[in-house]
């Protein structure tokens, strides 16, 4: 997408946002005042593999940064108007770059039965733990693979969110497109089956109203079980690359999803079930190898306390490709072959020590189909209410043809130190 397109899209939301903020801000600042919080944080991830970094790739330290975040928030006494802003100033030593990032900036208006939120906002749906089915909102895989704190795993959407509460909770999100932050060869050693040497360009969906993303959710309780249904008219958020003449062009194909989830107590634990259908309207017959085929996705999760201050969570996840024959027929040579049913299991174990000042966490993806794995151990110590430090690792392994295995030259250890105020 060109700069002009981006500006046009931003202005599409900027006008209403400004009006909305004006509507919600004066009342908000009147009675309750405005709260300021924030933190400063250093984060370094050092690659453990001895594999040589290709030229132009800063892969020895896929992440090395100093970051300051300022958060401001306010609401009026009646509670029917408010705003929140989270801004990061970031010195990125890996890319030798300094950036100002608006993580979130939104205004809220609400009444007894209705609520509206306009602006950049993080939206999280679904039941999965680091596995997403009906949550099609933007994510940051670079943050995940370099061990950033969990709040960085999701990116804000520039959106209008409307809620109605006639009994069940109805949520409608209208958003502009925002891509995932996916690993690139600037920070990672990546196996790339596409021709080398050709220039690459990603084209984001423009500001055309047809490209707007619309997602809906309805959720409610059945006794103490929670049920939800979801639909989305959206886009894939990682580019589909295609060689066109003298360059490689990435596009973000359209995606429609529909699904449901259920969660509740079974025995001494919590069970979660989620399923969804991914419809690829730009490749309905599955013959375009650059666009993902339509698929069903499902997961089952169970978590329970194992002993005092310790929790164990397990998930089984599967993706079932619809037009598998077409996929196999059109897959270009050199690309790894996926199974029709791709199965992944995850495990999470968390244990607190010393009055929850020490947290040990272990999360692992185990690729049952692709015979690969991704293990994330971490240990955090809170020196005080304001200061904590965490050491951890992102360990990729197994078959290189798998999604996680292909990243195994990027295994890293990381250290995060944060002072919050």
């Amino acid at each position: 997408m060109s700069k002009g397109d981006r500006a046009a899209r931003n202005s599409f939301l900027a006008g209403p946002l400004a009006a909305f903020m004006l509507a919600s801000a004066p009342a908000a600042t009147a009675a309750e005042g405005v709260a300021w919080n924030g933190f400063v944080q250093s984060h370094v991830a050092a690659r453990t593999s001895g594999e040589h970094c290709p030229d132009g790739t800063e892969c020895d330290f896929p992440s090395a940064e100093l970051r300051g975040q300022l958060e401001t928030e306010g609401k009026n006494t009646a509670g029917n108007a408010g705003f929140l802003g989270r801004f990061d100033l970031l010195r990125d030593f890996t890319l030798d770059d300094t950036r100002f990032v608006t993580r979130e900036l939104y205004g809220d208006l609400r009444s007894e039965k209705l609520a509206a939120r306009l602006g950049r906002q993080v939206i999280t749906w679904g039941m999965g733990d680091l596995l997403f089915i009906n949550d099609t909102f933007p994510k940051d895989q670079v943050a995940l693979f370099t061990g950033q704190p969990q709040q960085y795993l999701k990116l804000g959407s520039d959106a209008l969110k409307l809620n109605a509460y006639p009994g069940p909770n109805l949520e409608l999100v209208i958003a502009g497109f925002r891509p995932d932050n996916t690993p690139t060869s600037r920070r990672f050693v990546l196996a790339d089956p596409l021709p080398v040497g050709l220039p690459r360009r990603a084209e984001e969906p423009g500001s055309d109203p047809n490209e707007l993303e619309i997602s809906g959710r309805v959720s409610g309780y059945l006794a103490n079980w929670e049920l939800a249904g979801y639909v989305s008219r959206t886009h894939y958020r990682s580019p589909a690359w295609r060689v066109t003449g003298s360059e490689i062009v990435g596009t973000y194909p359209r995606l429609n999803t529909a699904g449901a989830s259920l969660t509740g107590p079974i025995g001494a634990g919590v069970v979660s079930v989620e399923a969804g259908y991914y419809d690829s309207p730009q490749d309905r017959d599955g013959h375009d190898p650059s666009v993902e085929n339509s698929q069903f996705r499902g997961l089952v999760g169970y978590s329970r306390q194992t002993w005092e201050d310790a929790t164990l969570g397990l998930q089984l996840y599967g993706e079932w490709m619809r037009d598998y024959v077409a996929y196999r027929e059109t897959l270009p040579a050199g690309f790894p072959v996926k199974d029709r049913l791709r199965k992944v299991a995850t495990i999470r174990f968390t244990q607190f020590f010393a009055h929850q000042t020490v947290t040990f966490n272990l999360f692992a993806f185990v690729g049952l189909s692709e015979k690969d794995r991704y293990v994330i151990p971490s240990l955090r110590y809170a020196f005080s209410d304001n200061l904590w430090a965490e050491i951890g690792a992102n360990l990729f392994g197994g078959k290189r043809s798998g999604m996680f295995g292909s990243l195994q030259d990027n295994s890293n250890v990381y250290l995060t130190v944060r002072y919050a105020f």
Partner: protein
Amino acid sequence: MKSFRPTVLSFFAVAAVLCAPPARAADSSADEIVKRSLESFYYAGNDMRARVSMKLINVQGKAREREMTMLRLNLGKSGDQRYYIYFHAPADVKGTSFLVWKYPGKESDRWIYVPALKLVKRIAADDKRSSFVGSDFTYEDVSGRNVEDETHTVMRKEDLGGRPTYVVESKPKTVIDYSRRLSWIDSERWLPLKEEYFDARNEPLRTFTADKVEQIGKYWTATVRSMKNLQSGHRSEVVFRETEFDVGIKQDIFTERYLRDAPAQWVR
């Protein structure tokens, strides 16, 4: 006359001996005392709102602080309750909230909201003996236990800090982190003024004290409370401010909507 007095005295003495067990029973049975105490401590009013400060103090005297708003609603006579806890501080957890649907006969349902991810997560609830946010209080200490979970015996009556109390011994029916506890329960206001927990070796484990008791509206309530772990030296002090009862909190506050979006009327 001379012979009469001893007779009368001995009559009273005999009567006193004979009447002693029935007299104790007539005061209140142990189960009844504990039940009234749980009702006064955990069920006062139809609903409750309080701003709560909690200090977690380690053995070196270093303190961590939590600032919360706590809302509670009783659902009729069933004993079911709803709890909502919103964290104002420290900065790193500001906006985090907890929702608990408590049932006397089975495990509670619990949810946590993580504001940075706008994530609502149901948490496995089989951890009522786990620490509440790193404090010396367990989840059960915060939201209450069932009379039937323990067997209770009245040991004696005793004054504590100028208040008349029943001293009740309670032993859990299933094996948990304590083997017995002694409670000093105010025999007029029915609040526990002190509790001592003992471990499996009968060594003192934790001590609870109600450090300040006030009457708010119709209800007596402990507005300053502490729990000390006698084995680690760690202690937690809790101050309830702005405590209000029967303010009209509605049941729909205790749902996902308000977990994500704190109800401004009550959380302030």
